């Protein structure tokens, strides 16, 4: 595995100019789920859990899910890193940990600047108009009021919401799911990022919008120092990434140039 890493690094060219932007050092992430031990949600089960208090987590019925197990890597400026692996292999968890959104159980992630996840869904409110959501989403991502005012028209035009009438002044709950997804992407993609992380779901909206959003992602990549992309679509990984991390059961199984890793991965998945 160490050799693979070196291979990947040599891809980016001269050694001296390489500036690390993300360093993961023996990273472990553990989720704790309350009352999932027996699967029985009954009151007596909950009571006996509380009575067993004081002892360790296992006895109290707190189930641990060890999602990421000791992952280490160094990502450099200008790299586009793809994350692949089967469902539940810890890709999204790793992404969140790099962004500093999930606390690490042990180990550390060092980053240059503030990595950001592409997405603002959680900050938006369906009962508010599209207009107010643009402002709210922008503020939630840390943009200033002036920045939002500057980009407002750009965001609305990009989403294409107003192509079929004045929809931006209607509450978001009146939008079709495609329209809402387009507006969400447009808001999220309006900000420039140091380290940008994209978690699948690029394929929203109609074909026309998909093309537009792929273009926007390429633009963001140029502006951002390092890009991480989680996807199950090997083609989009091939198109955008020059290095791939393959996670399986929370462990880093392979790290190297895109073609090599994807070839192994396809062999593994029996494609």
């Amino acid at each position, binding site marked *: 595995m160490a050799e693979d890493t070196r291979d990947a690094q040599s891809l980016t060219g001269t050694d001296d100019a390489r500036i690390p932007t993300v360093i993961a050092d023996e990273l472990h992430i553990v989720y704790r789920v309350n009352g999932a031990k027996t699967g029985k949600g009954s009151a007596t089960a909950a009571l006996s859990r509380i009575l067993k208090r004081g002892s360790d987590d296992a006895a109290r019925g707190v189930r641990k899910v060890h999602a990421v197990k000791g992952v280490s890597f160094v990502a450099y400026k200008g790299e586009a890193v793809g994350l692949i692996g089967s469902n539940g292999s810890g890709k999204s968890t790793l992404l969140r940990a790099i962004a500093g959104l999930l606390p690490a159980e042990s180990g550390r992630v060092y980053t240059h600047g503030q990595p950001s996840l592409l997405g603002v869904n959680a*900050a938006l409110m369906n009962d508010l108009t599209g207009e107010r959501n643009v402002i709210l989403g922008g*503020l939630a991502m840390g943009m200033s009021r002036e920045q939002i005012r500057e980009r407002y028209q750009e965001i609305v035009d990009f989403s294409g919401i107003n192509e079929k009438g004045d929809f931006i002044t209607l509450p978001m709950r009146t939008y079709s799911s495609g329209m809402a997804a387009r507006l969400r992407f447009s808001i999220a993609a309006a900000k420039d990022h140091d380290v940008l992380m994209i978690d699948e779901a690029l394929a929203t909206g109609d074909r026309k919008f998909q093309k537009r959003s792929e273009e926007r992602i390429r633009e963001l990549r140029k502006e951002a120092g390092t890009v991480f992309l989680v996807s199950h679509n090997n083609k989009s990984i091939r198109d955008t990434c020059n290095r791939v991390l393959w996670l399986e059961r929370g462990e880093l199984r392979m790290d190297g140039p895109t073609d090599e890793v994807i070839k192994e991965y396809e062999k593994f998945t029996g494609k």
Partner: protein
Amino acid sequence: MVAVSAPVSPDEGLTAAQLADRHGLTVSGARPSLVEYVRQLWDRRHFILAFSRAKLTAQYSQAKLGQLWQVATPLLNAAVYFFIFGVILNASRGMPKDVYIPFLVTGVFVFTFTQSSVMAGVRAISGNLGLVRALHFPRASLPISFALQQLQQLLFSMVVLFAVAIGFGHYPDMSWALIVPVLILQFLFNTGLALIMARAGAKTPDLAQLMPFVMRTWMYASGVMFSIPIMLADKPQWLATVLQWNPAAIYMDLMRFALIDEYGAENLPDHVWAAAGGWAALFALGGFVYFWKAEERYGRG
């Protein structure tokens, strides 16, 4: 040292921590210092305000009467309490009707302000995990934003309250100016309490189930619908003193003192302003530091 054919990178052989240090990388998701945290929070002030306003608007956006409910809800609330305690139970105990009704309505509104701040605080983190796990911002933005939402809600209620006071012959005078400092102090106290509850609720979501009972007990003990010294006249003196000094009772009594002409200083405990300020400072500062101490842990699990 012998020169090797290929130049060796100066990064070769460094541990992760050393490498990070060399290039000025910082630990992702680490807790900022208290001063830095306050600065970050200040930078997000527009988000905090916009979020609280958005929540307030979204609340009634599906109702036919829309934002009219902002005023109608407190009005109906006051009517229910008046019917139960004023008419059926006759809790006024010697207070004339034109004093008792504003007394009751003030108590209900002021206490509801604290009560809803606590309830919103409990769910501030645990109910917004999606937001916490998707975006970066000082987490204290959430409880503060919810407390601010309750303040805006109270301002709507104040319109009703003024109408009730004037309707019962208590016209605006100089003492109404005291409303402003009372509101500021109570808001500080509520925000601190919301911050404390937010951290507790993030760790133990069960609190959301438990808090309504705690709050109801607190409400009945704070003299929302009766005067504490009169109601507890035959009980030991210390009990009345303790109840009167609790922050909810203090803010309620100060607000009544400001609004109602016949509700004079004799109804207030000694050093009441010092107590009001003390509670506000203690909870606002203590709650903020307490919340900040767990900043990097919100969003786990």
